[in-house]
């Protein structure tokens, strides 16, 4: 995985911007779905699909590809949008999200969109699946496998006990090619995570279960890239990256508010969101020029 030079960072910022615009377009067209989480994970998904992961949109069933399991399926607009911008399917198809007959189901279903690694939605089951894949890889290729297994998890999702079952097993198995990324955006449907069900000290908890733990700014490409590089280099343990993100990132009226966890913007709100995103994109371009 190469180092991120400035030109690449700029390129990634442009893609993340497009991903956010697409998310707003999709949600307003669907008039249902989740806003805050997808917007917060634009950098993480962009970096994975456009720089870090070994994959080929032309050959989605390529055996040597890295696997990405989205555990918190409700943030799928960011997954679909990133996949479209990475070349898996046409960006126009994004507007079919949640509609009858669409390949883009409200929560991901791999029978509809076979290039997905799994179906998800019911929370807490993704880490186990990524772990199962990494275990199968270990059986076939031993500890020198160069395939990585990424799992994106929500923070609220960690309320589910199954995650902790998976964390125990992954720790015991020392699965170095399993890399979890927790979207630490501090909100869930009913409110702030620390009010609904406190997760802290989250770092200590993962560490106690045998994981190498990293904490980064989930919007900073360089920091994320360094963390993923370290995660790949660690050979004795699975790694979790706690990515601190702002839910609703770059849409000012959504940022940090739990109420935007599970609803889409209305038409006028979407217009405001797109304007805000465009203004910001202009600033980004200005800074780089």
């Amino acid at each position: 995985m190469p180092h991120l030079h400035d030109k690449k960072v700029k390129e990634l910022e442009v893609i993340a911007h497009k991903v956010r615009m697409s998310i707003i377009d999709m949600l307003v067209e669907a008039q249902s779905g989740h806003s805050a989480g997808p917007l917060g994970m634009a950098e993480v998904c962009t970096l994975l699909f456009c720089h870090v992961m070994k994959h080929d949109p032309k050959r989605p069933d390529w055996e040597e590809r890295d696997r990405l399991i989205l555990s918190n399926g409700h943030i799928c607009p960011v997954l679909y949008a990133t996949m479209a911008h990475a070349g898996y399917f046409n960006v126009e198809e994004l507007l079919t999200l949640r509609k009858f007959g669409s390949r883009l189901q409200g929560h991901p279903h791999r029978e509809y969109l076979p290039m997905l690694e799994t179906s998800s939605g019911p929370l807490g089951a993704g880490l186990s699946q990524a772990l199962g894949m990494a275990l199968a890889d270990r059986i076939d290729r031993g500890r020198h496998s160069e395939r990585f297994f990424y799992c994106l998890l929500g923070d609220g999702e960690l309320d589910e006990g199954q995650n902790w079952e998976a964390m125990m097993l992954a720790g015991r198995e020392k699965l170095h090619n399993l890399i979890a990324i927790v979207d630490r955006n501090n909100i869930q449907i009913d409110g702030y995570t620390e009010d609904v069900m406190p997760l802290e000290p989250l770092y200590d908890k993962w560490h106690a279960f045998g994981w190498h733990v990293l904490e980064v700014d989930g919007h900073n490409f360089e920091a994320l890239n360094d963390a993923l590089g370290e995660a790949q280099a660690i050979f004795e343990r699975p790694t979790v990256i706690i990515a601190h993100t702002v839910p609703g990132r770059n849409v000012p009226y959504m940022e940090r508010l739990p109420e935007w966890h599970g609803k889409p913007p209305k038409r006028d709100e979407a217009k405001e969101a797109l304007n805000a995103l465009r203004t910001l994109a202009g600033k980004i371009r200005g800074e780089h020029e």
Partner: protein
Amino acid sequence: MIVNIQQLNKNLFEKDVEQIPIRQGFGEGLLLAAKGDERVVGLCADLTDSTKMNLFRDAYPHRFIQMGVAEQNMAAVASGMAAMGKIPYLSSYAMFSPGRNWEQIRTTICYNDRKVIIVGSHAGVSVGPDGGTHQALEDIAITRVIPNIDVVVPCDAIEARKATLALAISKGPAYLRLSREKTPVITTEASPFALGKVSILRKPEHPTLAIIACGPMVYNALMAAAKLSNKGVEALVINMHTIKPLDQETILWAAKTSGAIVTVEEHQRHGGMGSAISEFLVEHCPVPMEIMGVDDRFGQSGAPEELIKYYGLGVDKIVERGEKAAARLR
């Protein structure tokens, strides 16, 4: 008059009929499946010896995953392994898998259409002394209602071995239901077995009743048929080893040929094998039916045979219900 078409155990009606736990057949079958296909892996939630996965574990330790007491994780890990091309068998007690981890089975295995074989041992009241918490009586209902999955309930250890092997090469996910206790060996190596095609164990020339049973209840069904014969009621006996997909052809034939049906299973009357059969027949060939099972109650501690009798699944009870069904026909 009654041809032994299925080449059943010759000692079947003797007092000293050989008895082997059905789960033992699974253990042996898994060993054979693993020998024949290196993609086979085994996962167990801390019940390796009692589900008989120990035979596989000892022979193929590198393909065995000890999951700890974590059935939900086990189901989803198996789904992930299947996604990478493995053929996972996961075992626990039926109460915990598919009981505890139903949603993981539905979403990560069946919704994804991943080929995983869920092996639930210790089903039914015949678990005995452990009591109601450990006696799964709802597992057929909760699995057969999920799209994509097959539901298989072998009648003895030999059939369990054959079913375990057959499931390694069948399409899609499956639930294999096993029992704890030693039960009579009904079939032989020569008995034909095909998933989805149920076996007719007793085929009189002019039946006036069909007894359809699954699991260890098949033995009781055969005993009841012999007694009924003495009373002038000739009964077909069908071993319903596959509950899903339903062998509609044979069920329809049995209903038309005999005109009355008794179903027997070690499961709640609601939602199980009898329900599956009645759902089909009520649309295609309604006949008088007696659905025998546990009647909306939980199990309890006791000796297996004592509990079978208490919950109304003994041979005499089947005879009684058989006469009743046949009488309803007249």
